[in-house]
């Protein structure tokens, strides 16, 4: 009978022991309602935990747990007036005059170091967000606020330059209040590299514990949080190279939650695991489009030889079967937008008039414009110039690359030659900013209001900024200005917005392809999961793991 030599037996025993130890979780002692640990897998990583200088979604997700706003959106997502806004640092507010808003801070609010949160912190925060040296990405969103002053240690006054429907939203939504006593000495030009940004001290429901670059970030609940102790004791963000890897980690059981499952296939896989995961659909904040450059590439003073022609753009729009493309790429995880808007916008109206998908009409228009296939090569031409253009796409987006190929094929059937320029995001960004493209597939992530996004991307105000295709129409802009400033009723503002969007749709500066519908997945043991579409984890402090669903990993003490 074969026997093992002593050394081999020893090696085998050591290996077995190692595996046993590795497989054993340490039993912990936490019991009750405040023991949960949530591991969130994510494809991004914050650059710095200072909300004034970063608008990355993942930075927002983390800093929302560390720093409070004065008030925040309710689940309805309303941005007009102050209806449904939820008090956070401010326990109440009132309007002194139509352009003067007074907030009364909650006296129970404390920074992690024990100091009270004061009106001076709010004024300091406004000063930081609007300082050109700090160069906050939110600076332009605060342009209608003339001043923020203190009346006493718990009363702060916002004065606006003019009256408009989203004054309250602008006052509370963009700024997370920062501790002036800890940040006052940081030179304004060096805010982005301040040490505070890697070990922040906040006033929110969670406290910073550790940030391991490239790997994870951990927060622990503040058991004394004045708005109620968070049920989940620990939040851990696990950073992965991209969102697909994050989903893989969730499905493999290495994480408890992901913000978005990205593809229909992932949704099917994750949501099919009903014993372990729950899926939560919510409105997405992104919309994507094929945008035409209305100016000559690299020379914004001249019109584009093709896309300067409105009729040609309209014909191209009518060529594309947006519904079929969307079904192919997203399945049910997106909608065809009725204009330049994400599903978050309250102006979303499926009845908005758009150009139809009508390939016969598109073909007639092209022929009428003189674009015919005179040499029988399958590509329309005019004056010996083929009807051809290049489509700029970033390689970092699988969705956009997929769309590009499908669009290329749809245009080919109409006799239009589209060549794809697939470049990495840095090059895409550089070329787009310089106007060096014929057409591009772009995506915008929007905040909940159309007021800033549409103006920046589709009016003259966005030239040199986000209006890459340099679309302009004075009639459209007049209506946008009227809708933004309308203080009548929300219904009236919505009608004005719709009229504006219909003008834009008729001009076809872009083909609006998709507006995302997100699906988050969270481990089944987590209860009371509520997701606010504009910031999916904003309400995580109210999520909980009931005592009878706790696992050893939730209970473990460290």
């Amino acid at each position: 009978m074969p026997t093992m030599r002593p050394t081999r037996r020893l090696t085998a025993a050591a290996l077995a022991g190692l595996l046993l130890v590795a497989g054993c979780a340490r039993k912990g002692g936490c019991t009750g309602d405040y023991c949960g640990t949530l591991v969130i897998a994510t494809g991004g990583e914050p650059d710095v935990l200072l909300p004034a200088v970063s608008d990355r979604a993942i930075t927002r997700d983390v800093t929302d747990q560390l720093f409070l706003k004065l008030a925040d959106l309710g689940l309805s997502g309303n941005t007009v007036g102050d209806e449904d806004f939820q008090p956070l640092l401010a326990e109440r507010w009132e309007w002194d005059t139509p352009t003067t808003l007074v907030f009364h801070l909650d006296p129970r609010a404390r920074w992690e170091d024990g100091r009270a949160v004061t009106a001076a912190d709010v004024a300091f925060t406004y000063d930081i967000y609007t300082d050109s040296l700090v160069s906050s990405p939110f600076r332009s969103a605060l342009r209608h606020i003339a001043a923020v002053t203190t009346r006493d240690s718990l009363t702060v006054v916002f004065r606006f330059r003019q009256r408009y429907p989203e004054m309250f939203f602008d006052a509370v939504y963009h700024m997370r209040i920062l501790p002036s006593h800890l940040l006052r000495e940081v030179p304004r030009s060096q805010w982005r590299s301040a040490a505070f940004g890697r070990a922040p001290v906040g006033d929110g429901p969670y406290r910073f514990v550790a940030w391991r670059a490239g790997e994870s970030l951990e927060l622990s609940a503040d058991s004394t949080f004045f708005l109620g102790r968070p049920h989940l004791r620990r939040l851990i963000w696990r950073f992965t190279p991209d969102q697909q890897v994050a989903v893989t980690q969730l499905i493999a059981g290495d994480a408890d939650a992901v913000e978005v499952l990205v593809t229909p296939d992932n949704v099917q896989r994750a949501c099919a695991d009903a014993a372990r995961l729950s899926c939560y659909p919510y409105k997405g904040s992104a919309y994507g489009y094929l945008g035409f450059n209305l100016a000559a590439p690299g020379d914004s003073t001249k019109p584009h030889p093709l896309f300067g022609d409105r009729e040609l753009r309209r014909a191209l729009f009518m060529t594309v079967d947006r519904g079929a493309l969307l079904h192919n790429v997203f399945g049910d995880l997106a909608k065809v937008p009725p204009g330049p808007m994400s599903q978050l916008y309250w102006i979303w109206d499926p009845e908005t008039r758009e150009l139809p998908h009508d390939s016969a009409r598109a073909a007639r228009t092209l022929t009428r414009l003189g674009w015919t296939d005179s040499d029988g090569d399958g590509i329309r031409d005019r004056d010996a110039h083929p009807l051809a253009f290049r489509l700029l796409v970033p390689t970092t987006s699988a969705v956009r690359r997929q769309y590009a190929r499908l669009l290329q094929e749809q245009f080919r059937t109409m006799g239009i030659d589209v060549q794809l320029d697939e470049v990495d995001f840095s090059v895409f960004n550089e070329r787009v900013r310089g106007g060096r493209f014929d057409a591009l597939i772009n995506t915008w992530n929007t905040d909940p209001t159309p007021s800033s996004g549409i103006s920046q991307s589709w009016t003259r105000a966005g030239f040199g900024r986000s209006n890459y295709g340099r679309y302009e129409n004075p009639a459209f802009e007049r209506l946008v200005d009227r809708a933004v400033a309308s203080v009548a009723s929300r219904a009236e503002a919505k009608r004005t917005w719709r009229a504006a969007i219909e003008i834009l749709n008729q001009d076809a500066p872009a083909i609006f392809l998709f507006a995302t519908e997100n699906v988050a997945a969270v481990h089944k043991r987590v209860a009371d999961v509520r997701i606010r579409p504009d910031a999916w984890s904003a309400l995580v402090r109210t999520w909980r793991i009931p005592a009878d669903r706790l696992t050893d990993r939730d209970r473990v003490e460290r």
Partner: protein
Amino acid sequence: MAAWLVRRLAASIAIVWAVVTLTFVIVHLAHGSPCGQGDGRPVSPETCAALIRRFALDRPIGTQYVKYLGALLRGDLGESLALHRPVADALAEALPNTLTLALTALILDFALGVALGIYQAARERRFGDIALGNAALFVNSMPTFWLGLVLLLLLAQWLRLFPVGGLRDLVLCPRLDSLPCLADFAWHLTLPALTLGLVGAAGTARYQRAALLEVVRQDFVRTARAKGLPERRVLLVHALRNALLPLITLFGLTFPFLLTGAVLVETVFAWPGMGRLAVTAILQRDYPVVTAAALIASVMVVLGNLLADALYGVADPRIRVRAT
């Protein structure tokens, strides 16, 4: 010996300088702007302008280079454009992870490769040799990232024998301060190290087999056999030492391969090392991090080759004599 060492060190510094200079020029001349965010969105024109002003990216490349070299000589690697922190801090966190991965893979590569090579040489042209030779060729032909994906799919996702990525169990082992946590770390390290090590081991086995077969036909081995020494002793004691010289050359070549391979493997296995840091930095045009990563990698390669040269002297005294 001292003169040789000085000559080698001077050559090494020149190589590192050349690599750094080339990297600096290439990344600065490459198309693309650092004004994009990690999550694929552009920053505002104002923020972009502030970034360019702050890091003097609007200056001529020559001016930037001189400034960079001056800082480098003072030991300052600069500040990351995207991470908003000193590059040295970012590298200090990532480098140990990459070295752990690369050294584990190196040990696996040579331990497995040498063992397989010896086994094959001892059974020349028999079934075991032929089967292992073909298997080694197959594995050696695989791209590292592809093997990583296959192992990930098979052993982590389907069979659930290993974690799908990361460095550790974030809940139970936030620090490596206990035996269970060290074991957990080893468990997380297994697949990425196996991916890197297996491909190398397949190549090493082929080298080792060829080297050993060449040595066993020499007179001193025949003499050892004629003296009646057991075959195992002939192979492992007399022949193997003389067959190790080509492996030392291979060691010098393997180290750079492991470092470059780690770039892909770290991405596949979400391993927070220098490779992942460098890839992200390249995509974001984070010039200081890219240049610093190239600097560190070139220093590693040069050190690996120096070590290989020193090992020649240990393995073959004749080389040591010539070097002096």
